[in-house]
């Protein structure tokens, strides 16, 4: 009796489930004409709100990378600045109180309205007048007057002399965008205005979005030739582009392996898994180390220089020398990072412009260990150690010295625990019988290294590698990953943190102002208050002088800018408010099943990231494979 019931129940269950079976994820969009990429920043919390000028709106869901065109964009792959809505460089007057920006002609918004200087003027005026916008304070403090000179030229009168004022419109993963005047002028409350659909000058327009925030679909404009991308590079190839979010990395990898995701950002291990299992999957580099290593940021860790004993440069140097960088790089990123001894990453034009000219100075740099002893920490052979490590892991590394320099850097510091010990002892630190280090007051030295809790983030990797090195050295070091890391470091409630040791540079051009200005003494706040500059809270009068000089230098004067940049780097190097280890590495994989001609290392025509603004310039170059 029961048996019959069971069979019936089973049959019904199967009949119900069968129609549900099927993997395809695109509704009514032709897969061979659609490009699917993953969003870096995760699920969109405000799916129907595209008002980028207020708060955080997940601009990499297609807004900054497909539909919006900024005045200029940084492309760190080629080291160039791409003119978007601007027609060329800004023209400052000699005392930097006035600047003129030429604008591109022939551009229309995605709804057909022509783009003119009126849009720029309107945008700046609105931002200046309305509190609540992200950039309100900046424009209110800096701009006296903005006005149109003609349809395609706009002028600014500044309140403060600022030779880098225009960089607020320079897109490097975010900048001030231009609003379409014809839409925003009729809006009652621009702060809560949702700006749905998003109207921009980029080559793509909004098609649809998921109310739950997991995907956004963009469609190629019919009048793509009226966008700067079309004007500069031609017709974008994908008809539709989807930016999709996944809640866990396993799903991302599986999606790519089943050809449902063309480009994705993964973690180090995810990259290995994707490459191991996918036959049409490739990384940025075709061989070890596979990673995107021209991302303009330097990782490492920072010291809280407002808190003892990290206010002492000797202590900071000692902790730096206690690190065996080969082990460290192996532990953190399996040796895949490019080492840099200074506070900028070793990529693009930076080695040629900055690091190589500094090499003599670096090799001659001497630390005073006390008792008349000195020590020269710079080690140009450190990268060779990383190469040896990589080979011992079974990876194939080319012998070409240039390729090795590019992949692993020009040098780092020697692994010198004895020198570190001497530096510490010079400052009255001591060791107990078991080799554990004690503070000058005799209590055991305990370091808590704070970082964010995402295990794949480079902050986390740096922090845990550093902790392991210091434990071996004899310090009671512990890694504290926490979601409150941002708040803690901003408030100065930490010892050492896995934050980037220096503010990220532009990645193109010779100007290091962006990086050095983070150490401006006017931004430092006492512990307990939110600090505005670099969270190490370090500053020095010498650095302030360099900054003042830089501000008075035209960024077009390459030689002077570079010289001042080198001076700044030397000061930071001497004081070591944070230790640079290796450049930021991105783990990007591309599936070549549907789309090919990706900007890999061997064919680096544009920056490789889909979440950067330069992604829209990649779209005319991708080729459909015909599958």
């Amino acid at each position, binding site marked *: 009796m029961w048996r019959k019931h069971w069979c019936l129940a089973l049959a019904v269950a199967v009949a119900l489930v069968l129609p549900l079976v099927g993997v395809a994820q695109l509704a009514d969009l032709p897969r061979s004409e659609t490009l699917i990429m993953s969003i870096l920043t995760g*699920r969109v919390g405000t799916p129907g709100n595209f008002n980028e000028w207020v708060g*955080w709106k997940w601009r990499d869901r297609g807004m900054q990378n497909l539909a919006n065109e900024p005045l200029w964009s940084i492309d760190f792959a080629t080291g160039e600045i791409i003119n978007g809505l601007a027609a060329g460089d800004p023209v400052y007057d000699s005392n930097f109180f006035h600047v003129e920006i030429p604008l591109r002609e022939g551009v229309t918004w995605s709804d057909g309205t022509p783009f003119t200087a009126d849009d720029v003027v309107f945008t700046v005026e609105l931002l200046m007048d309305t509190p609540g916008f992200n950039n309100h304070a900046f424009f209110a403090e800096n701009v006296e007057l903005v006005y149109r000179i003609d349809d395609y030229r706009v002028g600014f009168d500044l309140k403060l002399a600022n030779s880098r004022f225009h960089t607020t419109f320079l897109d490097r993963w975010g900048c001030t965008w231009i609003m379409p005047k014809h839409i925003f002028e009729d809006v009652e409350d621009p702060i809560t205005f949702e700006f749905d659909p998003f109207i921009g000058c980029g080559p793509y327009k909004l098609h649809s979005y998921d109310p739950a925030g997991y995907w956004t679909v963009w469609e190629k404009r019919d009048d793509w030739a009226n966008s700067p991308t079309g004007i500069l590079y031609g017709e974008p190839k994908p008809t539709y582009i989807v930016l999709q979010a996944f809640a*866990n990395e396993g799903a991302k990898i599986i999606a790519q392996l089943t050809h449902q995701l063309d480009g994705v950002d993964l973690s180090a291990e995810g990259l290995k898994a994707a490459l191991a299992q996918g036959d049409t999957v490739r990384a940025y580099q075709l061989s070890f180390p596979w990673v995107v290593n021209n991302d303009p940021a330097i990782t490492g860790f920072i010291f809280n220089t407002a808190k003892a004993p990290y206010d002492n440069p000797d202590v900071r140097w000692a902790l730096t020398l206690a690190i065996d960088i080969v082990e460290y790089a192996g532990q953190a990123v399996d040796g895949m990072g490019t080492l840099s001894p200074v506070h900028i990453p070793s990529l693009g034009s930076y080695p040629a412009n900055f690091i190589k000219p500094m090499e003599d100075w670096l090799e001659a740099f001497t630390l005073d260990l006390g008792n008349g002893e000195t020590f020269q920490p710079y080690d140009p052979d450190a990268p060779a150690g990383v190469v040896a490590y990589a080979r011992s892991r079974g990876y194939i590394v080319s012998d070409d010295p240039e390729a090795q320099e590019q992949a692993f850097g020009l040098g780092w510091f020697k692994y010198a625990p004895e020198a570190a010990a001497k530096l510490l002892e010079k400052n009255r630190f001591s060791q107990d019988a078991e080799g554990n280090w004690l503070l000058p007051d005799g209590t055991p030295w305990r370091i808590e290294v704070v970082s964010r809790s995402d295990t794949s983030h480079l902050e986390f990797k740096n922090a845990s590698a550093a902790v392991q090195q210091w434990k071996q050295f004899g310090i009671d070091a512990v890694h504290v990953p926490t979601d409150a890391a941002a708040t803690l470091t901003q*408030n100065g409630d930490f010892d050492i943190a896995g934050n980037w040791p220096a503010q990220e540079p532009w990645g193109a051009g010779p100007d290091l102002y962006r990086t050095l200005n983070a150490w401006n003494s006017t931004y430092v706040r006492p512990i307990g208050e939110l600090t505005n500059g670099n969270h190490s809270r370090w500053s020095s009068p010498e650095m302030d002088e360099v900054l003042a000089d830089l501000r008075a230098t035209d960024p077009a004067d390459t030689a002077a800018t570079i010289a001042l940049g080198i001076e700044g780097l030397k000061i930071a190097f001497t004081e070591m408010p944070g230790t640079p280890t290796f450049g930021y590495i991105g783990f990007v994989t591309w599936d070549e099943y549907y789309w090919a001609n990706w900007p890999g290392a061997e064919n680096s025509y544009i920056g490789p990231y889909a979440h950067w603004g330069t992604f829209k310039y990649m779209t005319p170059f991708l080729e459909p494979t015909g599958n």
Partner: protein
Amino acid sequence: MRFVRRYLLPRFIQYVLVIFLGITAVFFIPRFTPSDPVQRTIAELQSHGSYLDPGSIDEMVEDLREMYGLEGSMLEQYGAFWKRVFTGDFGVSFFQFPTPVMDLIRTSLPWTAGLLLWATLLSWIVGNLLGGLAGYYARSRWSRALDTVAMVVRPMPYYIFALSLLILFAYVVRLFPIAGGTDIGRRAAFNWKFIVDVLRHAFLPALSMIVLGVATTFQTMKLIVQNVNAEDFVQYAKLGGVKERRIVSRYVIRNAMLPQITNLALALGQILSGALITEIVFSYPGLGTLLFNAIVTGDYNLIMGITALSILAITSAILLIDLVYPLFDPRVRLM
């Protein structure tokens, strides 16, 4: 009247007090954690290398504090909060500024409610059915086999189970989609295509929850039924020659159901807490991830909104059980 005074009224007062206490606790605790929503917003804006001019950060902080309603002492904020709540306005989310909290909940709620409602009901029905029969025929082979299976399935860490399902049925054998609540590009409409789409995406998440739910309910029910089976009145009925079908349905199961109904009501009340791990593994939209992100970013209003609803749901479920129980269990009526 006596019933109302001795039974209903105290429970009702307790109901209100518990809600009040719960909401107050959830108001104050997040404000003591180190995650400051204003700093979190600034950190998010600055992340990925985006540049906020350091000179203007001070004023930005002021602006944000004002927009978020974080000015004034905690007690002042507390008072303002209660004034808003009675109009159903939980304020705006900080991290997803300026979207109102209720809008966010309204978007995610149908997904969570839909998935969890079906998963809970189905696992309860199937589990009780199987458990009841297995408990009654406790000596039989299939009953013990099922018991062992349930025994092994139940302690499996849910995350691994769900992830294995995903890999098995979305990768190894490609039957179901990998992520999301619907297909990409699908616009919500009440047509057949949309419904099938939603069911397709919900199948694996629901399956993962149902299998574990069934295992748990099965074992509980089996135990209860076994105990009831051993009771004197059931033995007497058997000896007295009452038809087996009647014994099973009117004697055994009816008595075993009481605690199970309590459990069902409680489980239904828990729906609004969301299923965080399910949503993470299957990238399924819902309240779980919304709440978790809110906690991590210190989004006080959103935390309060979701949690208040969750507390309301659970206490109401308990109150309902207390009110309805006397109808089912005559013994309580006599108290």
